[in-house]
């Protein structure tokens, strides 16, 4: 820039002199980049005096408009400096005075700042248009305005007593400034400047520029860390044409935020709660009063704030005026000393942990895109004096540090095992360390789009959670440590390396219910963004449009905002696009114009609501748009449904809820039609699934809309999630499973003729009848007549062949024990494959006869005996047949015979065992285990003691039924020992073979007469 400078010709000088103020404005119009470098210059010259600054700044501006000439740069500068002074000679006094004034102003400001604390201070520095407007006024009208700002400047002339002058701001805003007597004294000197100004040739006098530059320099000095704040400081420079409006008009201060007031304040409050932890208690802790007042602000409605807003508010529109307010607000927070601090709040601060950090250490902001979540996080964090470090998992940013951060995570996720530790290190750095930079600002980690990337986001979520839990643990131990300053803290943390969160972490997501966020959701403080009101959005848009010179009507803007669901980003982009195209915003054809619909998917519940409920506001539009409303409506719902997809679920939901609606339907025609439509959707769905012709999916939304046309009501309906179909599916699977496993247990001779599909249909009911004959008397077996005995044999036979038994209803992991218990508490016996359930329809009582409990007991015993007998019979009679039967009918034990054909038995049972292994019946497996255990104990016992029937339980347990190969081996060995014990009693194997013996001991079966008996007594 300096190279362009040159020495003007003498006459030009004169001209320049006359128009020096005018030229000051040129850079604003001509060179868009001008103000920006200027800032940087100032950064460098920061330590220098204001005066020097002022001189350096001035020269380039006038010279810019002059055609370039070749001249040595260095020389030019000096000359220029001189010249500029000279040029200003007519206003030297004024200049000096203004400088004087400026210093005073700075003093005042400094005082203010000291009082305010940093948050407010920064607010003040980051003001946007309106405050500068005031400054302009101050610049023109000199000292008084700056010194006593509130009193002297007013929007209305009538509010000022005495003399005043009108001051027009850059953006055409006009305020009236009071002229004090001192000003009047100086009037003579100043007249030139004022005349120039009022002459309309120049809208911004040189003084203002100087002042602004100073302000910027000052800002720089205070917060050079916030990189992008430099351009943010000059939001009103209309020259930055290539910037997106979205960025250009991004809110820079807390008060400018467009999002919901309540949320904003809650977030701010949350961040403020970190103060004592982050900034240390001594230095900058936000006092409880501030917090409480903040809290009050967040709860109390807006009118309180309105009082604080003094001037220039109506003109600028609602949102902008907040910028004005913020100076006051910063003070207001302080001055608003809350005498009535809510008790609950007090408690909260105390309960929030010794470190002074809030209870919930993570803030999770969620909401649809474009509502300003990220902006809120950044602005608030900056507002509270943090340095924002952003981690984003889906996109890179130009910031260097962020790239490192992002790339770390991305790279590391490739190898899973290292990932969390390295991310942890990185996050640890951010969350705990002090930045090495000059500014000692603590960092605030903002993780954007945390739900976006499942794999990547998860790592971070895990790490954060880990830190959080570490914090919880360590909190108990060190309480005093937390009171140290942050340097002490970091070092001590480093020592034991327990990473914990000592800096605020803000996570931002669109979908709160993303699976990756499930753990985070529980620990984080969740804020759900709601749409800002249309009016707020519109007023903001209007303001921006005015700024940009785009002609719009508020109706059009309202329509636009509604159309985009108050997504201000989308609105702004649209407007900018239209602006570039030089097209006006057309109200009626908003959707046909450039505005793209966001591809957002609503939740299923919203869709169901949309289907079951008529829209009210659509009605209004109907009146306006006439006949096209139907198609509008149609299109709206159509896009809603089709953007969601997942038609299966949508139709399930419709089906679930449709009968609960109250629509007028005397002959059920509508219901028929709806169900018919649902049927059609099912057909289409099935066809699509079978043929994979996904393009046919487009017809699904239309079906839903057809249903909507039939049943949509004005009243609210309460919509339920479709559970019944899922329930039906899982239950069906369950029952099928029962049937199938049962079928596998039945001997193949029978089961091959059964199919699980027709089983319930055909056989269950008669089977239940047959299995519980009412003719059977519940008496002891030996009391029955022959015929009845035959019946019982028949029944037992049937039960065995269908591998049915009774068992205790309480699910017990050990079935063999169960059977013993079943004898004791017989009342709870039920069929083992629970086939009774299959006819147990809701609200239906089947007239099945249920056997007496005693009878069931008898049956259980008989069935068991029968199984055992059958096993032994099948083995002795037809060894090959075991292969077919062994799998299904548990092979019983053989006492005497087993030994005589020990080898054969072992081989057959070998084969059987293999089958068993294949048979994956759970029951069998558990039996196997228990039997092994009991058999082991049994064998040891029988080795030591002689086998006695009355000897306590365990030794006899194996006899209750041995089912597997190992078991049999053990028994054989135990029997071997037994034989060794009683060689006299069993001299020959032939003798034993002649008396096959079966014994069984039932532990706790109390109606037996107990007395010690020896086996040989049975045998002889």
């Amino acid at each position, binding site marked *: 820039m300096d190279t362009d400078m040159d020495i003007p010709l003498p006459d030009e000088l004169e001209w320049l002199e006359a128009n020096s103020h005018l030229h000051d404005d040129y850079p604003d119009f001509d060179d868009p980049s001008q103000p920006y470098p200027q800032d940087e210059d100032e950064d460098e010259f920061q330590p220098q005096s204001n005066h020097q600054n002022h001189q350096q700044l001035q020269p380039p501006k006038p010279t810019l408009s002059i055609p370039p000439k070749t001249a040595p740069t260095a020389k030019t500068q000096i000359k220029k400096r001189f010249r500029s002074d000279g040029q200003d000679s007519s206003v030297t006094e004024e200049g000096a005075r203004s400088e004087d004034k400026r210093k005073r102003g700075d003093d005042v400001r400094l005082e203010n700042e000291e009082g305010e604390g940093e948050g407010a201070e920064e607010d003040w520095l980051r003001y946007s248009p309106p405050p500068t407007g005031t400054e302009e006024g101050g610049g023109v009208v000199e000292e008084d305005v700056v010194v006593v700002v509130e009193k002297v400047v007013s929007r209305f002339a009538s509010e000022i007593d005495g003399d005043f002058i009108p001051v027009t701001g850059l953006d055409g805003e006009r305020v009236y400034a009071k002229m004090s007597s001192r000003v009047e004294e100086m009037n003579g000197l100043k007249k030139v400047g004022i005349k120039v100004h009022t002459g309309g040739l120049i809208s911004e006098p040189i003084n203002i520029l100087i002042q602004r530059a100073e302000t910027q320099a000052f800002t720089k000095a205070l917060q050079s860390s916030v990189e992008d704040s430099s351009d943010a400081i000059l939001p009103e420079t209309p020259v930055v044409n290539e910037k997106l409006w979205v960025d250009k008009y991004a809110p820079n201060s807390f008060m400018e935020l467009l999002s919901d007031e309540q949320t904003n304040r809650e977030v701010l409050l949350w961040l403020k709660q970190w103060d004592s932890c982050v900034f240390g208690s001594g230095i900058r802790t936000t006092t409880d009063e501030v917090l409480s007042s903040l809290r009050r602000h967040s709860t109390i409605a807006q009118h309180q704030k309105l009082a604080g807003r003094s001037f220039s508010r109506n003109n600028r529109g609602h949102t902008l005026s907040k910028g004005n307010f913020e100076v006051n607000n910063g003070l207001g927070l302080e001055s608003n000393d809350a005498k009535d601090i809510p008790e609950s709040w007090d408690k909260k601060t105390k309960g929030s942990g010794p470190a002074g950090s809030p209870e919930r250490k993570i803030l999770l902001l969620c909401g649809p895109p474009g509502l300003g979540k990220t902006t809120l996080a950044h602005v608030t964090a900056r507002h509270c004096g943090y340095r924002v470090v952003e981690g984003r998992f889906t996109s890179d940013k130009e910031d260097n540090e962020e790239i490192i951060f992002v790339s770390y995570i991305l790279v590391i996720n490739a190898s899973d095992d290292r990932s969390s530790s390295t991310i942890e290190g990185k996050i640890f750095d951010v969350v705990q360390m002090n930045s090495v930079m000059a500014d000692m600002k603590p960092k605030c980690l903002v993780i954007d789009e945390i739900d976006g990337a499942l794999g990547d986001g998860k790592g971070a979520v895990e790490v954060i959670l880990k830190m959080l839990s570490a914090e919880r643990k360590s909190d108990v131990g060190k309480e005093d440590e937390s009171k140290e300053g942050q340097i002490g803290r970091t070092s001590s943390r480093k020592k034991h390396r327990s990473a914990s969160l000592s800096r605020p972490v803000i996570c931002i997501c669109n979908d709160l219910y993303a699976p990756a966020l499930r753990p985070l959701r529980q620990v984080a403080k969740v804020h759900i963004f709601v749409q800002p009101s249309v009016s707020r959005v519109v007023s903001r848009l209007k303001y921006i449009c005015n700024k940009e010179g785009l002609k719009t009507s508020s109706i059009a803007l309202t329509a636009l905002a509604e159309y985009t669901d108050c997504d201000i980003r989308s609105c702004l982009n649209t407007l900018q696009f239209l602006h570039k195209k030089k097209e006006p915003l057309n109200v009626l054809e908003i959707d046909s114009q450039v505005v793209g619909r966001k591809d957002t998917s609503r939740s299923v519940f919203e869709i169901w609501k949309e289907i079951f409920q008529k829209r009210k506001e659509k009605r209004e539009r109907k009146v306006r748009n006439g006949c096209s409303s139907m198609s509008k409506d149609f299109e709206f719902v159509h896009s809603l449904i089709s953007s969601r997809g997942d038609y299966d679920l949508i139709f399930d939901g419709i089906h679930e809820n449709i009968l609960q609606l109250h629509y007028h339907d005397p*002959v*059920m025609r509508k219901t028929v039609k709806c169900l018919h439509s649902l049927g059609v959707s099912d057909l289409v769905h099935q066809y699509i699934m079978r043929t994979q012709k996904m393009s046919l999916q487009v017809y699904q939304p239309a079906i839903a809309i057809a249903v909507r046309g039939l049943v949509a009501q004005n009243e609210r309906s309460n919509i339920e999630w479709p559970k019944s179909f899922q329930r039906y599916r899982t239950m069906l699977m369950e029952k099928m499973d029962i049937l199938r496993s049962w079928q596998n247990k039945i001997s193949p001779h029978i089961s091959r*003729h059964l199919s699980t599909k027709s089983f319930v249909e055909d056989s269950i*009911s008669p089977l239940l009848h*047959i299995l519980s004959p009412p003719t059977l008397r519940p008496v002891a077996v030996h009391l029955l007549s022959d015929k009845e005995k035959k019946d019982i044999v028949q029944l037992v036979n049937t039960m065995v*062949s269908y591998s049915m038994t009774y068992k205790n209803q309480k699910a017990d992991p050990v079935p063999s024990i169960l059977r013993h218990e079943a004898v004791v508490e017989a009342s709870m016996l039920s069929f083992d494959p629970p086939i009774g359930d299959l006819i147990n329809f809701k609200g*239906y009582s089947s007239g099945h006869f249920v056997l007496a409990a005693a009878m069931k007991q008898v049956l259980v015993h008989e069935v068991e005996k029968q199984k055992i007998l059958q096993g032994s019979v099948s083995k002795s009679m037809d060894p090959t047949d075991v292969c077919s039967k062994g799998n*299904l009918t548990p092979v019983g034990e053989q006492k005497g015979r087993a030994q005589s054909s020990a080898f054969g038995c072992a081989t057959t049972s070998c084969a059987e065992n293999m*089958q068993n292994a294949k048979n994956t019946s759970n029951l069998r497996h558990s039996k196997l285990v228990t039997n092994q255990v009991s058999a082991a104990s049994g064998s040891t016992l029988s080795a030591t003691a002689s086998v006695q029937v009355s000897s306590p339980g365990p030794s006899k347990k194996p006899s209750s039924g041995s089912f597997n190969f190992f078991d049999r081996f053990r028994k054989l060995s135990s029997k071997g020992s037994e034989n060794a014990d009683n060689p006299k009693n069993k001299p020959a194997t032939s003798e034993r073979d002649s008396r096959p013996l079966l014994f069984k001991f039932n532990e706790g079966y109390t109606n037996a007469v107990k007395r010690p008996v020896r086996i040989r007594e049975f045998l002889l």
Partner: protein
Amino acid sequence: MLWVDKYRPKTLDKVIVHEDVAQNLKKLVTEQDCPHLLFYGPPGSGKKTLIMALLRQMFGPSAEKVKVENKTWKVDAGTRTIDLELTTLASTYHVELNPSDAGFQDRYIVQEIIKEMAKNRPIDTKGKKGFKVLVLNEVDKLSREAQHSLRRTMEKYSASCRLILCCNSSSKVTEAVRSRCLNVRINAPTEEQIVKVLEFIGKKEGLQLPSGFAARIAEKSNRSLRRAILAFETCRVQQYPFTSNQAIPPMDWEEYVSEIASDIMKEQSPKRLFQVRGKIYELLINCIPPEIVLKRLLFELLKKLDAELKHEVCHWAAYYEHRMRLGQKAIFHIEAFVAKFMSIYKGFLIATFG
């Protein structure tokens, strides 16, 4: 053992119900040349029994010695391997399996496993029976793809293996498969035949049947032999010396359906329809096939219906059953039928009684 199993004919000669079919099959087998066979007919008509008897006829009594195998197959399907679990019943001569158990992966079973089985010729081919028999159950439940791959297998390995297919409805078996098989229709036994069987069993059991009692059971059995015999045994268990007017215990689910039907007749409103839905779900959950539910429901409704409505209601039942079979969610269609019925019936009531 239940009578159903006890008195199941083991050989083709002993078959009572489908005697003609049995004789034909016997002739077919003894002439050495056995084509692929497709047995189809309603459940409980004796398809399986015939197949077993046929196998016995072919291979002798050792064909009855079967063992259950539950094996996991690893099928290489292009890029990945699929684990399929399949239960088979196998003797030395034949393998019996239910390919539709694998659900949508059934074609892998057909393509890989069945092919594998079909390829292996039995080793003891002493000029006697040079082929293996594969019995596939529920072929009609196979997906189209599986059926298509089946026909290739049928042709390619026809030298070493014979397929015996068994299904309820031949209409769901593709033309191509059907044309490669000898189709054997096993129709439901007539009531006379059922009576014959019941009398046979009664004689064997030494029971005294009052006249007309067997006929009553047969009438109630819906022409399913299995049901008839089960009902017969139930009666025997409940009250032995039979009386001719003895109550035959009904099937529970049928009772439930008739409850639903009376619910429907009592009130026609969306609210009632909602209750009906819950009950239908109950039935479906307990493994009653939706077709059966719909059919039974129609049957129960028709009993209570005015004659002039019967035709229309039948029409709609058929209409919705068709859609149900095309679709996936049976409940939608059954409910649609119920709603339609309610609508018709209500309209009728209003028209008749004002």
